[in-house]
């Protein structure tokens, strides 16, 4: 009579890949817009269960890289292998169906809708009934809606946003909007979660909160995370491995401690003449 789901229920989609194996692989990817080379010959991988950071100075190609991973951009050269499946061109909604969800550098929520509705929107991709049934909102569609609502309530509980459940997102402070956005991404039950600067514009307390949620998502829900972040303290604390880009090229890749002491990285950040 008091159904408390155990955390095990949360575990991300089971995709038959063991923890620590390669989940996503980027091979020799290059992307250019006309004459501008955004990404040049980049290769790296993301292992299941890790927090992978992509860092680099402004304009280094980080967001482009994320856009390539979730299919928003199609690279001219190179391949992307996700869960052992190689692909070159695909649309973002395919990426979602495959289990890749993301948040954006600038909050991209439905401002007039409530927290609950925004997170429910994240579930729409998983809804099986067609629009006819959903409009009828009866029988199987209603049952399905209730099931999804339960999942959403788990996320609301997980992110501790019960108090803003019915508040239109546009009225919320920025830090909370970021959290709602994370909630919407989680609602898709991704096996790979892409976070584009989850802490941009946050104060110290909000950053600490967000860091804790990212760790919890990773550890309790077993979600693999790739994130872009400028706050070096956060990156070094959170991530298992870091890839560093500069001018569209990969200049370092490895564990935070190694990357931190890499001369090329230090030069890129301190601005040595190229």
């Amino acid at each position, binding site marked *: *009579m*008091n159904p*408390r789901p*155990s*955390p095990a229920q949360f575990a991300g989609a089971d995709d038959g890949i063991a923890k620590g194996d390669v989940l996503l692989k980027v091979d020799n990817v290059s992307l250019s817009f006309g004459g501008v080379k955004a990404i040049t010959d980049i290769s790296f991988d993301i292992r299941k269960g890790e927090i992978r950071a992509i860092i680099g100075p402004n304009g280094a190609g980080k967001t482009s890289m994320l856009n390539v991973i979730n299919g928003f951009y199609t690279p001219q050269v190179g391949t992307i292998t996700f869960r052992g499946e190689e692909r070159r061109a695909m649309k973002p909604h395919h990426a979602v169906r495959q289990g890749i969800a993301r948040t954006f550098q600038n909050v991209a929520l439905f401002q007039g809708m409530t927290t609950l509705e925004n997170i429910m929107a994240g579930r729409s991709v998983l809804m099986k009934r067609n629009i006819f049934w959903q409009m009828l909102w009866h029988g199987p569609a209603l049952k399905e809606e209730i099931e999804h*609502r*339960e999942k959403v*309530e*788990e996320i*609301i*509980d997980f992110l*501790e946003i*019960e*108090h803003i*459940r*019915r508040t239109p997102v546009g009225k919320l402070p920025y830090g909370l909007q970021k959290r709602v956005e994370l909630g919407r991404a989680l609602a898709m039950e991704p096996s790979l979660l892409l976070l584009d600067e989850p802490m941009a514009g946050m104060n110290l307390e909000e950053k600490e909160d967000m860091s804790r949620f990212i760790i*919890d998502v990773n*550890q*309790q829900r077993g979600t693999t995370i790739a994130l872009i972040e400028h706050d070096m303290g956060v990156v070094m604390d959170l991530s298992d491995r870091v890839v560093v880009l500069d001018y569209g090229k990969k200049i370092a890749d490895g564990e935070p401690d190694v990357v931190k002491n890499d001369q090329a990285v230090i030069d890129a950040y301190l601005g040595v003449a190229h």
Partner: protein
Amino acid sequence: MSASIWRRNGLAHTATALDTFPKYLLRNAEQFGSRPAMRHKDYGIWQTWTWRQQLDEIRAFALGLLELGFERGDKVAVVGANRPRLYWTFTAVQSLGGIPVPVYADAVAEEMAYVLDHAGVRFAVAQDQEQVDKLLSFADQIPALTDIIYDEKRGLRDYRSEALHDFEEVQAKGRALIERDPSAAKNWEDGVRSASGDDVSVMLYTSGTTGRSKGVMIRAASAVQAAFDTVKFDNLTERDSVLAYLPLAWVGDHYLNYAQGYVAGFCMNCPESQQTVPQDLREIGPTFYFAPPRVFEGLLTSVTIRMEDAGRFKKWIFRTFTEVARKYGEAILEKRPVPLAGRLAYALGEILLYGPLKNVLGLSKIRVAYTAGEAIGADLFSFFRSLGINLKQLYGQTEAFLYVTCQKDGEVRSDTVGLPAPNVDIRISEGGEVQFRSPGMFVGYYKEPEKTAEAMTPDGYVKTGDAGFFDTDGQLKIIDRAKDVGKLCDGSLFAPKYIENTLKFFPNIKEAVAFGDGRDFAAVFINIDLTAVGNWAERNNIAYASYQELAGHPRVYEMIARNVDETNRRLSQEPAMAGAQIRRFLILHKELDADDGELTRTQKVRRSFIAERYGELIEALYDGSSEKFVSTEVTFEDGRKGRISATVKIAEANIYGSAHASPVREAAE
């Protein structure tokens, strides 16, 4: 010692058969078995437990504790927010002859460690990871503490420790025991039935604003008797319901919700989280409600602000019908004669304004509401009463197991705290201090007999430490902490808090500090309320860049002078207070701030510290100067320090004669 006092006092025993809360649990499971006992909003849905289910949960946990090696007399710390399982812990521990010790969940580790160590707790039941981490940080310094039990699993999966248990697992142990040995349940029940009302029911640690917290021991039969009396006083039944949102360790929550809930058999509703309390209140619509005055103030402010933004028609409705309510509302509530036209207007108002408003606030079903802890402004108090909410005041303390006085329906005033509660005996000492004997009176402070002796008079009264007097109609009036009350040079009584509170009822005044003990007259420092005064400035086209500039503005001084004048007029109507009217005042150039040590973390004025820090300004109040240059060190939010300097103006105020109400202009000395 206490038991002998009890008998000597010969206080009435009306609940002898049921003299512990676990006994009430058995009764309620029998009598109101299928009625709700507990609700908790979880995953967005209200989960309900009936009294029978609650008995089952508590029994399972109690037997689980036995399996963990619990022994009679063991003390169990309860740490966390209002959660069903934490409330069940109270009863489970009491049912085994143990003593629950609720601890303020927001206490820092050292404070919590002190309480746990002092109480000698063996078990701790904590709400979540945050509290478990806190407990683990000092667990090795508390030799008595052997086991920690947690309610919410989240984040605790990777904690590997023999000493850590999941609440559900402990209950499973208890259920397994019943499975193995069906007589265990019966033995437990027999134990409950044969328990003595002389056992200590709970140990409540004082919040410790004045020195170390002390463990107030409450005897089971006393606790039950006190709750029995007030349940009867307010006609509470099993059909009532409350929202349990007050701190678990505070006597108010333990009394109003837990003790009264068991005795009356009503349902306790635990909110989803601290931030969702307003929504949860609205969904539950409790019939019995307690809130400190600042909560009511917050409600009124939010209503007022929303009305400012409303359309013209809505504003008109709001204005018109609050006026109707102001005229007739309280009279109707108190069943006094009201002209028919007034009744009709009020009935219309109920449909158009009061009903919807109460619904939005979650106060639609309130039968009895109380406020206490601070003085409440007359306008604020009347506003809620005029809507038809039966808001009353009580006065109490931990040592009394809450109630010392409370107001009877129909005899409610904002400036008094009511008549003595049922079976409570109150007297005013020669020094003006309020002293009482009551059914719920404490047994003593745990392990501190000398402090217990200090708090009692030789003839068995408890000293409250508050100064007060009985008004003409027999209602008690509290004026200040006894130690803060002083005298002016001419011998008239000077009660700083009374003056400050009267000033603070004006929305423009956020904080006030009164001086006068051993001086010729009373004088005050004032902090304006930046939101209220800022709003006013905006509407009146007064430009200002900072708090300091606004505080020194001549028109702000004029406005505050009117408030001080009104305060003096009110003081003049109080025979005891008329001598200490405000002659001179100034508006401080900075806001009093806890970061600068001027306020406590609970936003109370630290009088002596302020007197020291602003010594020059106090002298200026008394030496007749009209302004004074000061420079004060301040701490910014990021910890950096800086200085603010300003020339502070000092203003004179009108004094009223106590007999006649016309101002007597006093010459500046």
